[in-house]
Each structure stands twice: as C-alpha cells, then as structure tokens.
C-alpha cells in the first residue's frame, strides 16, 4: 500500500480480568475519512478509542498512526523496542480526543484550556498561543467566551471548547467518544454542527456516537460493533439502506424509528453466507 492509513488498529484486544471487552478488532481509517462507530452500550466502542489513543494500551494488537506503531520505536540498528514515555507522548500528539464528559480543566479559562498544550507541550510563546487559541475558539463559535471559566459555560459550549482544545494541537486524527451523550437534547445540535463542519473539511475523524442522524449525514463509513467485535464495516449509504448483517439491521430498526427523514433499512437476506470474514 503506498499511503498508509491515517490510523489503523490490528488485532486490538482488551481484557479486564476475565472479561474480554475488545476482541481482535481490525480498523483502518484513511486520511480525510469520517468513520462513525455505532453499536449498543457495552459493545466496546469507547474501549476501542482508548486503545487507539493508547490512553489504555491494548492487551494485544497494534496501533499504527501514519505508518508508525504507537508505543514502539525503531532503533538505528533496525530493532524495534518499547517506546519511552516521552516518545509515546510525541506519537500520541498526532491524535486528538474529545470526551463524553468534556474533561475541561475547571481552573483554566476557555482560552487557557485551548492554549495549555501549545504553551506547555509545544513551548510556544504565550502571545502566539493566544492568537491561535482565539482562532480555534472562533472556529467553534466561542470567541466571546475566551475568558470564561468552564463552570460559566453550558455543556454544549464546554464541549465546543474541548473540540477547540483538541484542534489547537493540529492532530492528524480526531477521536470523538460519544461527544453529545452527556448533553441536554437542546445543546446537542451546536456540537454536531461543529463536527459536521470538520467532516466537510475532510478532517480524519472516528466518532463513537448514538446520533444516528449525524452518522447518516456526516460519515463516509460506518463501523458497527457488538460484543467487542466489529460486526459490519460498510460505506454509510449502504449501511443505512441495506445493512449486510442481521444484528446491524436490528440495531437500526430499534434506533432509527426515532429519526424522521431516514427511510427504514432493508432487512438483510440471511439465506446466504454471513459476512464474518473480517472478524477472523
């Protein structure tokens, strides 16, 4: 393959004691691609993102970012050894992450949250960081809230600041872990609007979400998970109209009823072969 995927996980497995939360997941996302990860609660979606970002290194499997393996480094003699903590931090800086619970730092202003990494990690001058930080806040529509502390912001505003904070580090890939699940319904739209704008600009994104309408609108590809495995991995238009797997179809039947404007998916023909080949 000439261009390596922006991010790829191979054989990702995560065990917590006797429980296998992630069971040999393969996923690859091309540069500029928007992938939405759908699936019932407890299907391993969030764990997948934590493994891809190495916040929780997987029990088994490997993650490559732009062809470079996370957590490993290649010595000058060609041997591969576990990466130092500093090296891993550097590798991880190519990934940005947005969390369900925003995770803003409450003792810093909106601008302080956005510029913290620029100043402390990138070592940029405060004035430069400030300029960039204000730009990022403007991009999420919050230029006027630069000096507000998170406690003064609504959930939707906090999540937009969190997106600006991730964007400020200029990551190659953005991971979203249920970014709207903790929001009041009336605040979901403003966050999704920011994410849709990012998708339109072909930002590489993996979005774990329960927002089916957003996934149908913005995603290029849908990864449907259940029981720690990928059940179906398909182009978005095909997934929503003609899912190949019974479990995907049942999930869509249960969840899409709530969204007007999406036609009901066609039930897959189960008489033939089941498409479990990618799980091997």
């Amino acid at each position, binding site marked *: 393959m000439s261009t390596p995927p922006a991010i790829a996980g191979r054989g990702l497995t995560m065990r917590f004691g006797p429980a296998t939360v992630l069971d040999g997941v393969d996923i690859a996302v091309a540069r500029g691609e928007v992938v939405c990860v759908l699936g019932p609660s407890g299907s391993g979606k969030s764990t997948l993102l934590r493994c891809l970002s190495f916040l929780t290194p997987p029990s088994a499997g490997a993650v490559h970012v732009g062809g470079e393996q996370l957590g490993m480094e290649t010595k000058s003699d060609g041997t591969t050894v576990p990466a130092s903590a*500093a090296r891993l931090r550097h590798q991880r800086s190519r990934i940005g*992450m947005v969390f369900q619970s925003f*995770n803003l*730092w*409450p*003792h810093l202003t909106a601008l302080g949250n956005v510029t913290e*990494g620029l100043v402390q*990690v990138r070592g940029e001058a405060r004035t430069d960081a400030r300029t960039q930080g204000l730009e990022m806040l403007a991009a999420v529509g919050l230029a006027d809230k630069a000096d507000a502390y998170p*406690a*003064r912001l609504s959930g939707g505003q906090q999540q937009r600041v969190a997106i600006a904070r991730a964007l400020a580090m200029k990551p190659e890939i953005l991971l979203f872990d249920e970014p709207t699940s903790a929001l009041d319904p009336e605040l979901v739209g403003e966050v999704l609007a920011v994410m849709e704008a990012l998708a339109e600009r072909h930002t590489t994104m993996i979005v774990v979400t329960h927002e089916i309408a957003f996934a149908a609108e913005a995603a290029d590809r849908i990864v449907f998970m259940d029981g720690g495995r990928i059940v179906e991995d398909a182009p978005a238009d095909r997934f929503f109209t003609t899912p190949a797997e019974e479990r995907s179809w049942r999930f869509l039947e249960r969840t899409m009823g709530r969204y007007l404007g999406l036609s009901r998916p066609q039930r897959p023909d189960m008489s033939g072969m089941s498409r479990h080949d990618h799980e091997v």
Partner: protein
Amino acid sequence: MSVDWAALVPYLPDLARGFAVTVALTFGGAACALFMAIGLVLATSAGGPAIRRSVRIYTEIILGLPILVLLYLIYFVLPQLGLRIGEVAAGILTLTLYYAPYMAEAIRGAIASVPAGQVDAARMIGLNPVQIFIRILLPQTLGLLIPPLTGILIGLAKDTAILSVISVHELAYATKRVVSRTYTPFEVWALVAGLYWLALSALEVLMRRLEGRVTRFRASGASA
C-alpha cells in the same frame, strides 16, 4: 486567691521568646512534614510494590503511636543506638514523622477528587506526569487541601507543647520556667492559654483567606 498580673511583666520577654520558638517549630515541622508527605504520595502512586508496602507499614505504625512515645523513642532510644541528635532536631523530626502520614492522606484524598477524565485529557494533549501534577492537579486540589491541612497544622502547632518534656525552649517550656520563678501559675497559664488560642485562631483565619484565594475560579463560576 489574689491575682497578681504585675508579677508577670519582667518575664514577658521570656514568654515572647518561647512563643517565637513555638511558631518556628510549627512552621519548620509543618514544612518538613509536607515535604515528606509529598514524598509518601509519590512513593505510593509511582513506587513499586515493596515501596508501597513499606509506606503502608510505616503509616500504620505512626497511626497507632502516641506522639509522646514517638518523641521518647527518637530522643532517648536513638542515642542508645549511636544516633545522637539535639532536642530541637529531635522535636522537628518527631513532628515530621508523626504528621507526614496524615498530610499524605489529605493530599491523596484531594487528588482522588479530581475526575480521572481530566488526566486523560491532559495526557492526550501531551502533558508529562510532572506537568499534569503541577498544572492540572495541584491548582485544583489546593482549595480542597487547605481545610484538612489546616486541621492538621493546628494539631501540629498544639503538639509542639509536648516538646517541652525534652527541654525544647518553646512556649510551654518557657511558661513552666516563669511559673517556677513567680509562683503565679494561674496568671501565667491563663495568659499563655489566651496566647495559644489567639495564635491558632489567627492561623485558621489566615488559612481560610488562602482557601478563598486559590478557589477563585469556582467562585467566578458561581457568580455567573
């Protein structure tokens, strides 16, 4: 009983010197204990199982020991093992060893109150563990730390009086000496009790002010 305050006047400088020593012991002991407490917290969070177990055993020994017994162990028993230290050093060492585990517990509790997600976010931004502690955890936990630390500090300040039994020239020791010269125990002890109360109340007010300062980011949130 006749009360004779005038008899005290010539001895006020002695009491003032004793008070100064008590203040110095309090802050010296508290600083050393805080330093050691941070070491204990880091040892339990980053150290291996052997280190963690030793910290736990040490903590349990201290929690089950009256401070007077610890003081005697250090001042009378250590020299027999060939380790001779002065009474002030023994006093500070006692306060440090005795109060560090309590402070460590307060620090651990405060840090545990910061949601783990904030550390995840900091790691994703690329902050290293020291930056996370200094830039993310410490500023938020200071406000939570000050109330329990105030209680511990006041306990430590009061326990400096125990050091008088090994002849550290602090306020309680000075008081006993003045009483033995003037034979006016009521006046001297009443005065000194008032002094302790005043100083400790001032300390508490001071710490509360400090708490207000470091939690301004919360107040500004509430005022919106």
